[in-house]
């Protein structure tokens, strides 16, 4: 990221301001609190290093559990909010977008402070605040689908019944895939989750599987000593794909007060600092289970970072924290990876056919 910063990108902001002064104002952008939108025309007009507004042509798609993605890069759950980012780029250009965890009823989430910076990452404890499945189906999903995006709906719950209720409601709606979040460290005592218990996990997935025809991804936690029995439980329960990793349990202290920074005491660590560990989780799982589709997640901030996941055996990746430091980062990473795959025809071919490296 610092290289990007240093690159002398001085593309003149003037062009943009002039363009917007000439007229094109998007009322909704103002309603959102953003300054009036700039008219976008030719590439290079925006004062960014990466032009998120040009027309994209993807050369390398991937297939995850039978679902075609335009490119192998998606957004990770919890770091994608349609209303927050649609002013910055066309979200339908992503391989897929994963929406924030949705529960049977609205959840208030955890008290603030909810975030603390940590070297090359952050510790967060949002607690899956969300407006509930009914609101999501009316106010969120249809608008995101209307852009043409491939949508993965992340499903959250406190109990098997919670998950079943959400999956049942999603069955008749237009999500392309479901991601069962059994791995959030911030919604249960001591940061434990269903995702650490193979028996409970297999029971849950077995129960959910018949409720819908949609491909079902299970998102796994890294807070386990061995990921393989967990992955196996999911596969035996009928999971169509696995995504990994969710966040590591962590915390920070305020050394002036001697107290934890987060109101929830602990949170989930994410960012570039988790990238090597995430790669190891994907690699180990791929070695043990050659067939199961895997979405690699963890600390991706460049196309190169994403490519490493593909070499570790992932079919696709999702970008999380990087999207908080730059709203268009997922799209930038997708373009970088597309260029890297141009030079790796064998890998690109495998992905296109639903296989992996």
């Amino acid at each position, binding site marked *: 990221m*610092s290289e*990007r*910063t*240093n690159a*002398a*990108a*001085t*593309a*003149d*902001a003037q062009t943009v*301001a002039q363009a917007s*002064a000439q007229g*094109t104002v998007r009322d909704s*952008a103002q309603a*959102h*609190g*953003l*300054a009036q*939108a*700039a*008219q*976008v*025309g030719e590439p290079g007009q*925006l*004062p960014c*290093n*990466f032009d*998120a*507004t040009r027309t994209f042509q993807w050369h390398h798609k991937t297939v995850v559990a039978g679902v075609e993605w335009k490119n192998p890069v998606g957004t990770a759950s*919890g770091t*994608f*909010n349609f*209303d*927050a*980012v649609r*002013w*910055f*780029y*066309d979200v339908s250009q992503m391989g897929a977008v994963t929406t924030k965890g949705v529960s049977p009823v609205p959840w208030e*989430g955890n008290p*603030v*402070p*909810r*975030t*603390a*910076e940590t070297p*090359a*990452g*952050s510790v*967060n404890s*949002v607690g899956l*605040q969300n407006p509930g499945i009914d609101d999501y189906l009316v106010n969120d999903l249809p608008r995101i689908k209307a852009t043409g995006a491939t949508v993965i709906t992340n499903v959250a719950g406190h109990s098997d019944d919670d998950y079943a209720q959400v999956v049942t409601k999603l069955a008749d709606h237009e999500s392309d895939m479901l991601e069962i979040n059994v791995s959030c460290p911030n919604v249960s005592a001591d940061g434990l989750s269903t995702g650490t218990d193979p028996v409970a996990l297999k029971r849950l997935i077995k129960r959910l599987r018949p409720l819908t025809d949609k491909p079902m991804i299970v998102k796994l936690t890294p807070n386990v000593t061995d990921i393989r029995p967990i992955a196996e439980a999911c596969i035996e329960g009928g999971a169509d794909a696995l995504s990994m990793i969710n966040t590591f349990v962590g915390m920070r202290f305020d050394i002036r007060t001697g107290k934890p920074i987060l109101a929830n005491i602990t949170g989930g660590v994410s*960012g*570039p600092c988790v990238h090597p560990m995430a790669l190891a989780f994907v690699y180990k799982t791929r070695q043990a289970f050659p067939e199961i589709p895997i979405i690699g997640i963890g600390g991706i901030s460049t196309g190169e970072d994403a490519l490493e996941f593909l070499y570790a055996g992932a079919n696709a990746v999702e970008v999380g*924290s990087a*999207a*908080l*430091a*730059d*709203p268009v980062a997922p799209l930038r990473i997708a373009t970088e990876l597309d260029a890297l795959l141009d030079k790796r025809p064998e890998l690109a071919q495998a992905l296109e056919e639903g296989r992996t490296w």
Partner: protein
Amino acid sequence: MSEFTPTYVPSRRPARVVECQELTDGVVRLALRDSYIARHAKPAQFVNLYTKNAQRLSPRPFGVCEVDGDVFTLMFAVVGKGTEEFRHLRPGDTVDVLGPLGHGFNLREDADYLLVGGGLGVPPLIRAAQELSGHEGSTSTVLFGYRNVHFADAYASRYATQLQSIDESEGNVITLLDRWASQHGVAADADGALRPAAQGRRTVILTCGPLGMMKAVSAWAREHGLTVQASLEARMGCGFGTCVVCTVHTTRGILKTCVDGPVFDTAQLEGWEAAR
């Protein structure tokens, strides 16, 4: 047939440093060139700055202080490693920015605005004074409280109709508000809205500063029948509405400080009922 052209706002980008000066010990005024921000930043809107250190990825949000052509300024205290890095920026350097972000003060009403700021809460109020200096039907009275050095008076006085400031040796912004009230013949516990100006304009308070100060201002305002727009500070993970870490409990539900605020009517904020 006209083709629909989607429009987008610019994302994160580098801005060139025009000037970086230390106003007093640990208080920095930074001028950056970014015409998009300079031309669009409304009072109490903020911008994210990002450090060049790959270890520190979180945004540092700052309220825009002044705008002038293609240049905007920020004013901040050095409180940690991020702001320490920004303190050493020199003209010609670049720093990544994103913005302007958030919803600013509502200044549409012709009114007598009291701009009550404390410490490093003053920049959005200076921007408000700058904006109000172009409104014929409104006045701005700046009331600033400092710990000791009155570092922002010179900037606010360029725009304000009146300015009074105070430091801890003499009192705080409530002292200034009490003085203002007595000068305008307004007694505490007056019922109903004040009409100090002959024109019959309302008095509206804008405030930004430490939480305790803003709550005290809000309590004072309620006793005097005035409404308050407060610009809140929050620990943010993104600044543009994605991460949901900067939440605030309001009568309208749990909202995000970054995109639903940072300005809120204090009557809508839960936990602000406590008297000063």
